[in-house]
C-alpha cells in the first residue's frame, strides 16, 4: 500500500441470503484507489461490481445483505465500522456516486436546481443565494448551456445526456475526494457516451479527484482508466495498469474478454465468445470460479482456490496455471 492511497478495500465480503443458501456476491475483494487516479472495475453483469461500490458508501441494505468481512479504509477510518450519522457526513461530501440510469436517478417532482442544491445545503450549510450560484457554476462545469434557466427545469424536460450531466453535477457538488461512477454511460448512446467520458476526464484533471469507474465496456476502460481491476464472480481475477491489461493479459478470463471484442482485423470471421455463463452467486463452483469455462483448466483448478500471481509492476493475475506454464 503506497502513501498516496485514498481508499483501500481489503478482503471485502458481502453476502446475501437467497432462499436457504447464501449468495456470495462479493467474496474477498481487495483494491485501492490512489489520489488523482481513475480506476476501472470491469466485469460481466452480476459479478459484484456494483455491490462492491455500494458497500463503500454503506448503501447495502442490511438486512437482507450482510457485510461478512473485510475493511474499507478511507482517511484512516474503517467505513464499515462507522455509524449511520458519520456515514451521512461522508456520503456526497467526501465520496459521491453517479448512478447507471440518469432517467430514474433524479426525483421527478423537484427541479434540478433543488436537487443539486440539496447536497450543497446539507454538507456546506450555505445561504440560499450562495447555493444557487454554486449550482450555476456546477452546471457550467458539466457543460450545460444557459444554466440559470436550466435550474428551474424538471428532470423530464432534459435529455438523457443532460440528465447524466446533472447527476455528475450533483456528485461534484461538495468537491468530493472520490467519485464512484456506476456504469454512467450504459443508458446513453455512443456519441453522448463519448461526451460524458470526456467530461469525466476533464473534471478529474481540473479538480484532481479520484474516480472509481464501474463498467462492462472494455472500450470505455481503454479510454479513461489508469489502472484496471477485472472482476469475475465476486473476486478480482486480474489487476494492472491499462496497458498491461490490454496488451499483456495474464488471466484466461481477461484474455477471453479481449478476444470477444469486435475489431476491424477480425471482420468477416466469427466473433470469439467465452463458453457458458456467469455462475449463479448462490451456486458457485468450487476452486477457481472460472474453471468450468476456462480453456486451460486442469484438475487442480476444481479443488484449489487460485492465488494471486505477481507479474511485476503491479500486474497481478489470479491464475497459477498460466503463471507456471509461462503465460502460454
Amino acid at each position, binding site marked *: 500500500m503506497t502513501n498516496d492511497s485514498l481508499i483501500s478495500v481489503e478482503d471485502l465480503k458481502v453476502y446475501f441470503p437467497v432462499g436457504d443458501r447464501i449468495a456470495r456476491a462479493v467474496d474477498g475483494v481487495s483494491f485501492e484507489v490512489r489520489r488523482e487516479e481513475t480506476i476501472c472495475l470491469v466485469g460481466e453483469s452480476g459479478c459484484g461490481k456494483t455491490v462492491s461500490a455500494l458497500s463503500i*458508501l454503506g*448503501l447495502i*441494505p442490511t*438486512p*437482507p445483505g450482510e457485510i461478512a468481512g473485510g475493511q474499507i479504509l478511507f482517511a484512516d477510518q474503517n467505513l*464499515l*465500522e*462507522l*455509524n*449511520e450519522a458519520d*456515514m*451521512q*457526513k*461522508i*456520503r*456526497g*461530501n467526501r465520496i*459521491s*456516486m453517479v*448512478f*447507471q*440510469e440518469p432517467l*430514474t*436517478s*433524479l*426525483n*421527478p*417532482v*423537484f427541479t434540478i436546481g433543488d*436537487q443539486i442544491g*440539496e*447536497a450543497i445545503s*446539507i*454538507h456546506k450549510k450555505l445561504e440560499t443565494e450562495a447555493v444557487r450560484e454554486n449550482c450555476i457554476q456546477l452546471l457550467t462545469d458539466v*457543460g*450545460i*448551456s*444557459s444554466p440559470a434557466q436550466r435550474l428551474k427545469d*424538471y428532470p423530464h*424536460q432534459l435529455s438523457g445526456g443532460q440528465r447524466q450531466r446533472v*447527476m455528475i453535477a*450533483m456528485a461534484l*457538488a461538495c468537491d468530493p475526494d472520490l467519485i464512484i461512477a456506476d456504469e454512467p454511460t450504459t443508458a446513453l448512446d455512443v456519441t453522448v457516451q463519448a*461526451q460524458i467520458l*470526456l*467530461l469525466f476526464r*476533464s473534471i478529474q484533471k481540473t479538480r484532481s479527484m479520484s474516480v472509481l469507474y464501474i463498467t462492462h465496456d472494455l472500450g470505455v476502460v481503454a479510454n479513461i482508466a489508469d489502472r484496471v481491476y477485472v472482476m469475475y464472480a465476486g473476486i478480482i481475477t486480474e489487476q494492472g495498469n491499462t496497458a498491461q491489461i490490454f496488451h499483456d493479459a495474464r488471466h484466461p478470463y481477461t484474455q477471453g474478454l479481449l478476444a470477444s471484442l469486435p475489431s476491424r482485423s477480425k471482420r468477416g470471421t466469427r466473433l470469439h465468445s467465452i463458453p457458458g455463463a456467469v455462475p449463479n452467486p448462490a451456486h458457485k463452483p468450487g476452486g477457481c470460479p472460472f474453471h468450468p469455462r476456462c480453456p486451460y483448466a486442469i484438475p487442480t483448478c476444481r479443488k484449489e482456490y487460485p492465488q494471486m500471481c505477481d507479474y511485476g509492476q503491479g500486474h497481478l493475475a489470479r491464475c497459477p496455471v498460466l503463471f507456471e506454464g509461462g503465460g502460454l
Partner: protein
Amino acid sequence: MMNIEEKTFNQDFQFQAPLAPKQTRLQAFWFLFKQNRLAIVGLFIFILFFCSALIGLFLTSGPEPIFDPALIRLQEKLRPPLAKPNLDSLRPEEVPTLDFYLMGTDDLGRDVFARMLQGAWVSLTVGFVAVGIAVLIGIFMGGIAGYFGQYHIKVDHILLTFILVSGAGLVAGKLIHFGALLLLLGLGHILYSILTKKRSREKAVSSWSAFLSKNAVSVDTLIMRIVDIMLCFPSFFLILTVVALLPASIYNIMIVIGLTSWMGTTRFVRAEFLSLREQDFVAAVKALGVSNFRIIFRHMMPNAVAPVLVSATIGIATAILTEAGLSFLGFGVPPPHATWGNILSDGKRFIFDAPWLTFIPGVAILIVVLSFNLFGEGLRDTLNPRLRERH
C-alpha cells in the same frame, strides 16, 4: 491552449435546440382536469360551500350577528320558505335580516337559513380537521411501514415496552414504589444500550441474550396488523361508543372521526413507499448523504401524495356524513349550536307539516358530499396516468 477534444465538447452547445413550450405542472394538470365536466361541477360546488361556510361564520357569530341562528320567535314557528314575517307580532330586533324567511323557520321559530349557515362551518371544519388528523397519522404510519418495514422488532424491545407500560400502570395505580422501580429499570436499560451501541458484528454469547436479540415481528407486519385490527371495528359504532363516553363537543367528534379513519391512507402510503423505496433516485439521494427522515418526508412523500390527496377528498365527504349521522342520532354537537345533522334531526318530528326542515339540510348534505366525491374522482383520474387514457 485548447485541445481538439475540448473544442468539440464545447461545440455541441453552440446552438440551442428549440425548447418545448414551457408548461408548469399546474397548467398541465388543469388542462387534463377541466376535460372532466363532473369534476369541474364538483370543484365549483366545493368552492361555493367553502365560501358560504366562511362567510356564514362571520354572519352568524359575534354578540350581534347579522343572521342570528339562536333567536327564538315562538309566534313565527314552522313558517315555510320565502314566507313574509308577521311584522305586527315581532319586536324590531326580531325581524329577519332579509325581511323574509329564505328557508323557513323551525318549530321554535328560528331562521333555518341562519342555522344552515352556522352548520356549514361545522361540517367544513369537521371534514377538514378529521381528515387532516387521519392523513397525518396515515402518512406517518404508512411511511414507517413502507420505508423501515424490513426491520425487525426484537424480543427485548417488546419486553422493554412491557416493563415501561406496566411500570407506568403501577405508578398510576398507586403502587408507586414498585412502579417506579420498573420504570427506572426500563430507562436504565435504554441508557445502557445507547451507551454501548456500536456497529459490532459479535454473535450473542448466552442463550438468554440470543433470545433477547431474536427477531420477533417486522415493523411492516406490526403496523399492517394494527391497521387490519382497526378496520375490523365497525367504525360508526366505535365512534358512537367513544362519543357517548366523552363529553359532547365538536372537537371530540373531529378527533374521534380522525382517529378511526386513518387506515386507508396508511395502506396507500405504504404501498407507494414500497415501490418508491426501490427507485434509483432514492438510492441517489442516499448516496448524497441525505438522512432517512429527509428522504421519507422530502423526497418520497411528494411522489406518494397523489393517491393520498384523492382519498382525503373522498374522506372529507365521509367525515361530513359521519358528523351529520352522529348529530342526527343526538350524539353530535350539543344542541344550541346548529349543524346540518341536528337541524335534520329536529325537523323529523314535523316531516309532514314542515318538510323543508328535513329537506333543506338533507339536500345540502347530499350536494356537498356528492361534489366532494366527484371532485375526488376527477383528481384521481387526472393524477393517475393509467386512468388518463380513458378520456
